[in-house]
């Protein structure tokens, strides 16, 4: 009998630990031409705010060693736009036994609250909400609010009473243990980490940033070892489940996150480089679990020996 891969991410029951990192997976439907998206345990949709955002100027991405850097600036259709354009698809994906985590973006606490209320009103398909307090590419909100325990706690304190659905928080790659503790204390059901790492890429001939802004967010394999360390630190600090994100390209990368303490693991930029990677990564994960000789993948969570 093959081992059980089912996990529970803060109240979101997933048939396997694989999730997708917000911003690398559109709204899910973009991948249906490559494979059956419902093979994933969950997807996380692009962050949406109470109203549509146009995002940042061009250029928005550049290649860097081991990954990429982006400054999309959370371009999104707003919660209403998401529901109008993709609501029926996402509801149908839920029926296909794939959980739908909707990411929430905001420029202020009032923005986050308003967006959560809109999701409550309009998006019955949402299995859970992921509050993004760590986007490095917007002028206010995002990382500006999520980079201190006090700022992060304030956002979650405001949104927590507005929803009974599982509430996840997308964390910045900074001050992880103390911010994780603050979020757990405010009633977050799970933590997603890490968001992209603030970085820079400069065209030395023109002396200009390769993005429309001086800095952007790094993603891709270059982030993986940093993310594994931060997931391990968070898992030592809190008892709520963690979704590990950062540079996953293989089942082995997923396994590292699980051994470091993650309950679920998101595939990020690899979705863009190799759009049909998820079924391959899932098969590799299954092979690893079988090789480890356990009947339940939960027995491997946090099983790092050192």
């Amino acid at each position, binding site marked *: 009998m093959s081992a059980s891969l089912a996990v529970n991410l803060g109240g979101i029951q997933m048939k396997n630990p694989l999730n997708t990192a917000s911003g690398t997976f559109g709204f899910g439907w*973009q991948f249906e*031409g*490559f494979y059956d998206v419902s093979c994933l345990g969950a997807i996380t949709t692009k962050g949406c705010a109470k109203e549509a955002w146009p995002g940042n100027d061009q250029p928005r991405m550049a290649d860097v*060693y*081991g990954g990429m850097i982006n400054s999309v600036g959370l371009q999104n259709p707003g919660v209403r736009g998401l529901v109008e354009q993709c609501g029926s698809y996402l509801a149908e994906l839920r029926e296909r036994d794939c959980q739908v985590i909707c990411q929430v973006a905001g420029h202020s606490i009032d923005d986050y609250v308003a967006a959560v209320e809109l999701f409550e009103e309009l998006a019955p398909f949402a299995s859970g909400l992921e509050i993004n307090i760590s986007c490095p590419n917007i002028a206010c909100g995002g990382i500006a609010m999520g980079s201190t325990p006090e700022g992060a706690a304030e956002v979650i304190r405001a949104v927590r009473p507005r929803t009974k659905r599982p509430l996840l928080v997308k964390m910045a790659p900074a001050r992880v243990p103390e911010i994780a503790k603050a979020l757990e204390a405010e009633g977050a059901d799970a933590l997603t980490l890490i968001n992209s790492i603030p970085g820079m890429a400069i065209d030395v001939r023109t002396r200009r940033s390769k993005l429309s802004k001086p800095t952007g967010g790094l993603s891709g394999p270059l982030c993986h070892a940093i993310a594994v360390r931060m997931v391990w630190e968070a898992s030592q600090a809190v008892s709520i489940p963690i979704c590990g994100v950062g540079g996953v390209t293989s089942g082995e990368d997923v396994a590292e996150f699980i051994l470091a303490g993650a309950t679920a693991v998101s595939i990020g930029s690899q979705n863009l480089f190799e759009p049909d990677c998820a079924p391959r990564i899932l098969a590799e994960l299954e092979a690893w679990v079988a090789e480890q000789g356990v009947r339940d993948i939960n027995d491997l969570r946090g099983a790092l020996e050192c």
Partner: protein
Amino acid sequence: MGAPTPSAGRLANALVRENELVSGEIYRILLEAPELAQALHEGQFVNVSVGGEAKQLTRIPLSFTQVDEQEGTVELVYALIGPGTRQLSRVEKGETLSVLGPLGNGWNLSAPLHRVLLVSGGTGTAPIIAAAMALAKMGVDADVVVGARSSDLLWGIDALEAKVQGEVIAATDDGSAGEKGFASEPALALLAKHDYDLVLVCGPEPLMKVVSAKAISLGIACQVSLERTMACGFGACSTCAVKTVHAMKGACMDGPVFDASEVIFP
């Protein structure tokens, strides 16, 4: 409302039949990819993955010049502009590359056409050659202006002269081949001289801006093919944004070809 339609792009492993320098820093690569060759429409693009280059994990978006449906081949053109395209130039005949396509919306050549003006610069000449081939098949007259910085970077003239029923004018910034100056100058002169019912432009944004503004002022339909840095090519990453009079659109799914009247040029 139903689910939005995913990209028609599919992944395939394509055999490299040829990969050679055309001129200056311009290369052409001929790929054996029968399903892609059947599916591609002029003005669409493909995303090519190069292995073994840590500075290029994203796929490289490339335009095609021509397909041979019988042979099942697709000819792509690229310029050496960074580590990814340098790695691509080292790929040898007989190797395989992962390609994703067809991507995006190509030129719309469906209206009744009598005479079309084609204007290009740099690697923008690739989709212009594809358009010229299609127009020649349709028996539509076309004049072409091809620009480059200098003679060693000028390419595609022979292929165009062999195909189009009309003038082919070369222009170089330094005057080392053809007319001296930007491609916009002969293009504007042609617009004043002939009655066109469509103008297609692909090249640097200032060229597209100047030529499309003139065409629109004359009441001539104009399409532009835009270049953007992009990570996916199928609508998932939101990096290839294009400002339009309607909304922010994506070059990969809504373009790369746009009606010039909707594009807000910087």
